[in-house]
């Protein structure tokens, strides 16, 4: 792209980056009412239309992968589940199953079913949260309040089973920590039926209410070419018609016996994302009822010795947002040698910014929430030297030393 003197002025430098003039760039974030977590998006505008978006990440980077190397295997379960509050159990499931794959032990079937039940309950809660948020950004506060009122049912169930609504701490290396309480099987079926009926009503309302659908229909149109190029995962991929779901392709927990239905759509816009997530939540209710019926009796936990054998394991789960990938490497000791986590928002963020192009500023909250961002999950640090055009990663020790040098120079020129 050469120097364009009519629209926003941007040139392409030798590093392949876009430089732009300050007047045409509108910063969105890092602190903005429509972002749950801070992330910086520089919107290049032409009038009110967005032509280019440049995300800059790193605002909630906490160094969890590095912190995991200092803690023992069991302590890491509590660290990893706090990466994200909404998909907390998916992280803990990915980690514990990844570690169990390094050992020669098999967890009991009942533990698999219990993990499935909590995993689906979490999917319901996450999708209901997202549906309420879409209503909120579109200005439909009433829908937001009603959906979150019904979400309380799933959170109460989670609290009754695991002891906490958010940081469930339910999965452990070797199975789950507690069995279902008495009477919970019946209650799960009743509540799942209740949530299903409410979801039917919301599907009717969200599809029919004209002032709401004109905000979501046709927003953020993507197609299969975009998702294939940018390796999208999760509902964002399925809304373009590609039926990929980790629970079906590579079954873990009890998904080989309680099979989910893969929901796709062909429109690729936010309205189809709403339909897909609604249907997935309804399907989760069906799966919970089925899992409770089919649940085998037996142990819910086995004891695995604390020294995990050396090796590497790669494991992925279908978090509510998409594919969540865990790589665990053990050197035979009591702490892991490397834990690498690639969350679904990390894969989706470029698709998300692609969805924004061509829209006006009014649509940015709706479209950005459409990709269901969870920046707390995804953050990384990358160092970019614009003049030299190089991009590389920096290690922890070097970063610490750099910080000490930088501040000592600023303070005293030592």
């Amino acid at each position, binding site marked *: 792209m050469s120097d364009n003197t009519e629209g926003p002025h941007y040139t392409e430098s030798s590093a392949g980056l876009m430089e732009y003039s300050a007047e045409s760039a509108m910063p969105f974030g890092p602190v903005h*009412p429509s972002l749950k977590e801070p992330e910086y998006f520089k919107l290049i505008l032409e009038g009110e239309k967005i032509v280019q978006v440049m995300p800059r990440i790193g605002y909630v980077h906490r160094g969890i992968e590095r912190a995991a190397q200092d803690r023992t295997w069991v302590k890491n379960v509590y660290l990893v589940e706090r990466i994200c509050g909404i998909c907390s159990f998916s992280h803990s499931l990915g980690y514990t199953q990844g570690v169990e794959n390094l050992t020669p032990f098999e967890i009991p079937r009942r533990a698999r079913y219990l993990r499935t039940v909590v995993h689906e309950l979490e999917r319901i809660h996450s999708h209901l949260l997202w549906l309420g948020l879409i209503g909120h950004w579109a200005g439909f*506060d*009433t829908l937001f309040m009603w959906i979150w009122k019904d979400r309380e049912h799933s959170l109460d169930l989670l609290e009754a089973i695991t002891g906490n609504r958010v940081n469930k701490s339910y999965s452990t290396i070797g199975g789950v920590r507690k069995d279902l309480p008495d009477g919970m099987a019946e209650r799960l079926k009743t509540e799942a039926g209740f949530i299903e009926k409410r979801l039917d009503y919301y599907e009717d309302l969200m599809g029919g209410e004209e002032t709401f659908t004109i905000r979501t229909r046709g927003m953020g149109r993507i197609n299969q070419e975009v998702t294939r190029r940018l390796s999208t995962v999760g509902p964002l991929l399925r809304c373009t018609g590609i039926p990929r779901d980790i629970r079906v392709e590579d079954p873990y927990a009890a998904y080989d016996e309680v099979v989910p239905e893969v929901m796709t759509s062909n429109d690729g816009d936010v309205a189809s994302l709403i339909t897909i997530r609604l249907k997935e939540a309804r399907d989760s209710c069906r799966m919970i009822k089925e899992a409770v019926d089919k649940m085998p009796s037996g142990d819910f936990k086995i004891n695995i010795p604390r020294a995990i054998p050396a090796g590497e394991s790669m494991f992925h789960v279908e978090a509510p947002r998409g594919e969540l990938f865990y790589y665990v490497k053990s050197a035979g000791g009591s702490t892991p040698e490397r834990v690498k986590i690639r969350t679904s928002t990390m894969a989706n963020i470029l698709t998300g910014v692609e969805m924004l192009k061509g829209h006006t500023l009014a649509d940015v909250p709706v479209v950005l929430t459409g990709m269901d961002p969870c920046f707390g999950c995804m953050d990384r640090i990358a160092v970019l030297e614009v003049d030299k055009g190089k991009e590389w990663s920096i290690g922890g020790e070097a970063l610490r030393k750099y910080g000490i040098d930088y501040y000592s120079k600023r303070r005293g020129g030592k």
Partner: protein
Amino acid sequence: MTPIEVLQLLLFPGLTFFVWLAFLFEWLERKTAARMQGRRGPVVTGPYGILQPVADFFKLAAKEEIVPAESDSFVLRWGPALYFAAPAIGVAFIPVVGAQSILYDPLDLLFMLFILAFSTLMALMLGYASAGRYSTIAIGRLVVQYTGYEIPLILAMVTPAVLARNLSIAGIAAAQANLWYIFLAPVAFAVFIIAALAELEKPPFDIPSAKTEIVGGWMTEFSGNTLAYVKLTKNLSYAFLSALAVSLFLGGAGGPVLSADPTVQAVLYTVYFLAKLFAVGFVIFVIRTALARVRIDQATRLFWTILTPLSLAQLAVAILVVAR
């Protein structure tokens, strides 16, 4: 003006009365919206939280005023007083106690139109003087929305004037002694309510101050005392427009004469007026809670392609009815 009239203007049924009504309207709106959403609304301050808007006003007045460096601080500090003056003068022309209003002019409907335009002009000026990024976007949207709803609003307000052959609000209210105009011109009433929603920046037309997109709209840079008065003015406009709807379409303070004693009758008239006012307010609350926010181009399309022709048609029908 006699001292009695000055007292009436300031206290009852003039400014103070309407300011308390404005607080009451805000409380009612928050309470009904909350109950319809399954939550409680204000509960702590006063019984059932009825003093919450008053508490909010005093809390804001006590906060520090932060004036951005690039803004026009004179306008930001004193503009809200002018913005408040518009509906504050307007309420004096509404007949509350019987058929008479405090201030009267044979052409005061036109003055109401001017006041509505003046409110928006003041909002525009305040947003422009803020010189913030979000304010600039907001006032663009405000102007676009204003050009959209102004014509249907004026046409809807002129229709009762045509039916009553009178251009003063008190006169229009008095002419509805036999039949309220809401039955003769229901379309005009509906158009007036929808356009009033747009004037007040309530959902589905709250684009100029869309909280989730442009932070606070044209009110973003306000804080402290000025914000307290801006919010009070918005609530006062709410009460004022509902009172206008009552006077133009629901017969003002008219109702059955149940007593020969003029004082008791005056109280009765006030009760009728308040009942109709809350009914109109309730209709606006329900519409506001049930709908999402539309985008600016969709709102303009609605105004220009649907509401304007409808109100023109209604006006034509009204002229035909009266000409017979």
